[in-house]
C-alpha cells in the first residue's frame, strides 16, 4: 500500500508539472480578455474586474447560478422535511458558547464587508454570502438546533422568504434594464448611478446585484444545512 501510494503520488506529480508548464501566464491575452482589461472600468464603473464580468458582461450566467442554488435549496427542503429528529439538541459546552458569542459579530461584519465592497476589492455576493451562511452553520452547531428554530431572524421560514426575495430583487434589477430601453441586466446604460470608480458608491447596479445574490446565497446555504441536520 505504501509503495502504491508513493508511486501514485509520483505519477500525479509528473502529470501536474507537465500540464502546468502549458499554462500561458498573462503574456498574450485573448481579444475578449484584453477588451475587458482595457475598457472594463470605463464600461461598468467597478474596479474589481472579476465582479464586473460576473454581474455586468455575464450577468445572465450569474442569474443561472443563483437559480441553481434556489433549485438545490428547494430540493433539499422537499427531500429532508419529514420527521424531524434533532440531534444537535442542546449545543456544545458553555465555554464554546461564550467563545462563539465573542466571535460571531466579527464574522458577521466581515461577511457584510465582503458583500458591500465586492465592486472595489476582491470578494462579492457569493463569497460574502457563504461567509454569512457559515456563521449560520456555526450558530446551529454551537447553540443547538432549537435555538435556531426559536430565533426569529434565523428561523427557516424567514430564511426561505429571504431567499425568494433575493432572487426577485435580482430579476427586477434586470428588468429595469429592459424598461429603460436596453437589454436585460444592462448596467450603466439603464441609468444606474455610475459614481467615481473605486469609491464606495459606484459601479451602477453591481453593488445592488451583489447584495441580492449575497442574501440569496446566505439563505439558500443555511436552508440546505438546516434541512440536512434537522431532517432524518
Amino acid at each position: 500500500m505504501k509503495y502504491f501510494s508513493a508511486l501514485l503520488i509520483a505519477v500525479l506529480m509528473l502529470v501536474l508539472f507537465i500540464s502546468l508548464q502549458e499554462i500561458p501566464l498573462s503574456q498574450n491575452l485573448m481579444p475578449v480578455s484584453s477588451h475587458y482589461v482595457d475598457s472594463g472600468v470605463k464600461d461598468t464603473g467597478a474596479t474589481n474586474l472579476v465582479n464586473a464580468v460576473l454581474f455586468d458582461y455575464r450577468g445572465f450566467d450569474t442569474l443561472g447560478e443563483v437559480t441553481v442554488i434556489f433549485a438545490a435549496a428547494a430540493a433539499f427542503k422537499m427531500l429532508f422535511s419529514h420527521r424531524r429528529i434533532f440531534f444537535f439538541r442542546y449545543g456544545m459546552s458553555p465555554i464554546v458558547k461564550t467563545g462563539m458569542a465573542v466571535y460571531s459579530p466579527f464574522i458577521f461584519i466581515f461577511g457584510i464587508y465582503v458583500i458591500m465592497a465586492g465592486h472595489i476589492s476582491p470578494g462579492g455576493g457569493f463569497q460574502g454570502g457563504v461567509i454569512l451562511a457559515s456563521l449560520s452553520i456555526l450558530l446551529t452547531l454551537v447553540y443547538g438546533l432549537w435555538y435556531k428554530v426559536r430565533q426569529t431572524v434565523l428561523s427557516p421560514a424567514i430564511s426561505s422568504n429571504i431567499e425568494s426575495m433575493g432572487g426577485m430583487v435580482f430579476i427586477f434589477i434586470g428588468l429595469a434594464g429592459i424598461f429603460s430601453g436596453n437589454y436585460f441586466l444592462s448596467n450603466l446604460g439603464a441609468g444606474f448611478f455610475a459614481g467615481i470608480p473605486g469609491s464606495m458608491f459606484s459601479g451602477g447596479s453591481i453593488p445592488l446585484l451583489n447584495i441580492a445574490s449575497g442574501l440569496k446565497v446566505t439563505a439558500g446555504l443555511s436552508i440546505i444545512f438546516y434541512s440536512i441536520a434537522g431532517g432524518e
Partner: protein
Amino acid sequence: MNLLISYIYYAFLLLLVITAVYSVISRNLLCSIIFISLFNLFMVIVFLLLQAPDVAMAEAVVGMGFTTALFTIAISKTKEEE
C-alpha cells in the same frame, strides 16, 4: 513569479497531490474529510500565488467550511459498513 515564490508554489503543489492521494486511500471516512479540508487549504494558497483572490475566498469558505460540515453531517447519519 520570482524564484523563491516559485519554489513555494511547487512545494504546495506537492502537498496538494499528497493530501489528495491520502484522502482517497485512507480507510477512515472522517480522516478522508480532514484530508479534503487540508487539500482545500493548500488550494487556497495556490490560488493566492496564482493571483486569483476571488476564487481563493470562495474556495476557503466553501471548501474548508461548508463541505466539511455537510460531509460530517452526512457521515454521522449513515451506518459504517464496507
